[in-house]
């Protein structure tokens, strides 16, 4: 008797065999005890592995970890271990004893963190325990045996490394300020007039493949207003470390695709990086003078946000009638949204659904907007969302087996929910 192969057994366990092969395997397993036992062993290994690897840290831990991630992103801290304060309600594994030979991990549990407070104080040969700090550092006074430092450049107070370090540090600070000053002079002053003059050119530099193609571009912008220096290029983060730190403290690098940069953007405008999402789902762009975002401590950890994207996703089954072949907004969705004006500088979000004449959603249809180098695909419910500058734009919907649908849509605040019915190709 020919036994089953590992391929047949494995795919039989995963239930991915076609009907004919499944029948062959089933009948063979009925008569061959050896293959049946082998299959059971494989399944046993699978189940054991699933048991070993299944572990749920708990919603509280995950919420704390999510808050920690956001905090790190907003503060720009890299590689900092998870704060023990964040895991006050740590799950049981935090309190597990460390395995032999395993170095303690900084995350640790709250208890472990409490145990690992200051390192043991050094003991001098005489047996006296020394504090981990020196007396002058603690009291903030100079040691009597050390002469007072002379704060003059070029003069080193011999025998006092602390004072020499302080002078060197001061020089470094002065040098840093000088660099910032030079960069500040090199860059254009951030007056509203200057920013207005730069707005279209920066958008063009952002990588829009068709300059002037969209309504947000001004093809005839004066050459003098164009940002020609690498330092003027907001997408050139390598040349702009200070601008990175100043303008984009928490956000990802600005996209070079048209999604982020086709929009006319002023240099000093926060790149929506630290802008929080309002309860309506719109990104609030803070004025330059305001702090970029609320401090992380005031951030509600477990409060889930309800985005209008989810609201627009409601009623998935109410696709248009087969007769409708045009783009038309849903009045209820438009009325449900708050009045425009709260976030005038934001791109409106355009969402909709694509269906075939029978009302079935069309998955994988490509929706593109004129002037925006961005195509989105519909999901399995035929839905899509795209964000673009306000105004009327030609929209095209391309799907395999259907006639390309073209219509003009108006992007504006209080986004409309589009319903598009495609006609089948002949």
């Amino acid at each position: 008797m020919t036994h089953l192969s590992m391929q047949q057994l494995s795919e039989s366990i995963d239930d991915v065999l076609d009907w004919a092969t499944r029948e062959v395997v089933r009948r063979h397993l009925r008569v061959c005890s050896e293959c049946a036992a082998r299959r059971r062993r494989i399944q046993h290994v699978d189940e054991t592995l699933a048991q070993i690897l299944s572990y749920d840290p708990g919603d509280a831990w995950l919420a704390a970890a999510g808050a920690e991630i956001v905090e790190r992103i907003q503060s720009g801290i890299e590689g900092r271990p998870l704060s023990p304060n964040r895991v006050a309600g740590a799950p049981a594994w935090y309190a597990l004893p460390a395995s032999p030979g395993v170095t303690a991990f900084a995350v640790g549990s709250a208890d472990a963190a409490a145990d690992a407070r200051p390192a043991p104080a050094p003991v001098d040969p005489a047996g006296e325990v020394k504090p981990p700090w020196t007396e002058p550092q603690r009291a903030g006074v100079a040691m009597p045996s050390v002469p007072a430092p002379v704060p003059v450049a070029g003069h080193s107070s011999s025998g006092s490394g602390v004072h020499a370090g302080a002078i060197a540090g001061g020089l470094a600070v002065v040098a840093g300020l000088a660099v910032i000053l030079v960069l500040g002079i090199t860059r254009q002053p951030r007056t509203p007039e200057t920013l207005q003059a730069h707005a279209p050119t920066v958008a063009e530099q952002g990588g829009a493949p068709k300059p002037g193609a969209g309504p947000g571009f001004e093809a005839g912008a004066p050459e003098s207003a164009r940002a020609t220096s690498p330092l003027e290029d907001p997408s050139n983060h390598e040349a702009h470390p200070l601008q990175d730190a100043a303008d984009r403290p928490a956000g990802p690098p600005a996209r070079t695709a048209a999604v982020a940069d086709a929009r006319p953007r002023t240099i000093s405008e926060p790149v929506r990086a630290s802008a929080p999402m309002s309860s309506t789902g719109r990104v609030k762009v803070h004025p330059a003078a305001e702090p970029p975002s609320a401090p992380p401590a005031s951030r509600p950890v477990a409060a889930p946000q309800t985005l209008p994207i989810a609201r627009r996703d409601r009623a998935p089954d109410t696709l248009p009638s087969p007769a409708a072949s045009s783009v038309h907004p849903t009045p209820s969705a438009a009325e449900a949204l708050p009045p425009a004006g709260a976030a005038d500088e934001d791109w409106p979000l355009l969402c909709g659904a694509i269906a075939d004449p029978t009302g079935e959603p069309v998955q994988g249809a490509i929706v593109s907007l004129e002037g925006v180098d961005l195509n989105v695909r519909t999901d399995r419910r035929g839905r899509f969302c795209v964000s673009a500058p306000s105004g009327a734009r030609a929209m095209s919907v391309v799907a395999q087996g259907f006639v390309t649908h073209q219509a003009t849509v108006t992007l504006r605040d209080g986004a409309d929910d589009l319903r598009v019915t495609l006609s089948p190709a002949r």
Partner: protein
Amino acid sequence: MAVDSSVPWIEAGREAGLLLCAQQGDVDSFDELMRAHAQPFYRLCFALACRPDDAAEIMIESAQHAWRGLHQLPVGRPFFPCLARIARARAAAHRRRMTPEAREASAHRPSGLPWGGGASDPAHMAEEQRIYRIFRDLGADDQMLLSLRLVEGLGYPQIAQVMDLTEGAVAGRLQALRARFESAAPAEAA
């Protein structure tokens, strides 16, 4: 195959909208994305790291890395595969830094439970430890594959999407891994 190829933890349209907002710098949208994927992502990190504390480190570092590289992710592509690949790379790097002693199996499962699920059957405990040792010595790709299949219960198309493989490659790797576990079984069990 009746399994849908989309990754099931978040609705695709909602994910696309959140991803778009996150790519434009909205931290809250990214937070929402991460929360939607937090449980499966942690479980994946746990399988890759084999230790809860290392899994936490890999998870948070991967999330930061994903945030920095979010602009490179095409709109419309699912987020979880990107996250999973970052975690795989991080786990591989983390493993290289681990000392051999740290990789030794302890008296507990990675989850902190005793071997054998608390049962007093020494054969069962030994069997669990044997399986776990084989799993621990696998490469990050294979660990990820087994985790997605056995823990998350994903189908071949979904695993192929997450790991950027073909479905045939997924099936072949699973067979090879099962054969490896089988060949390492003690003689009496075989």
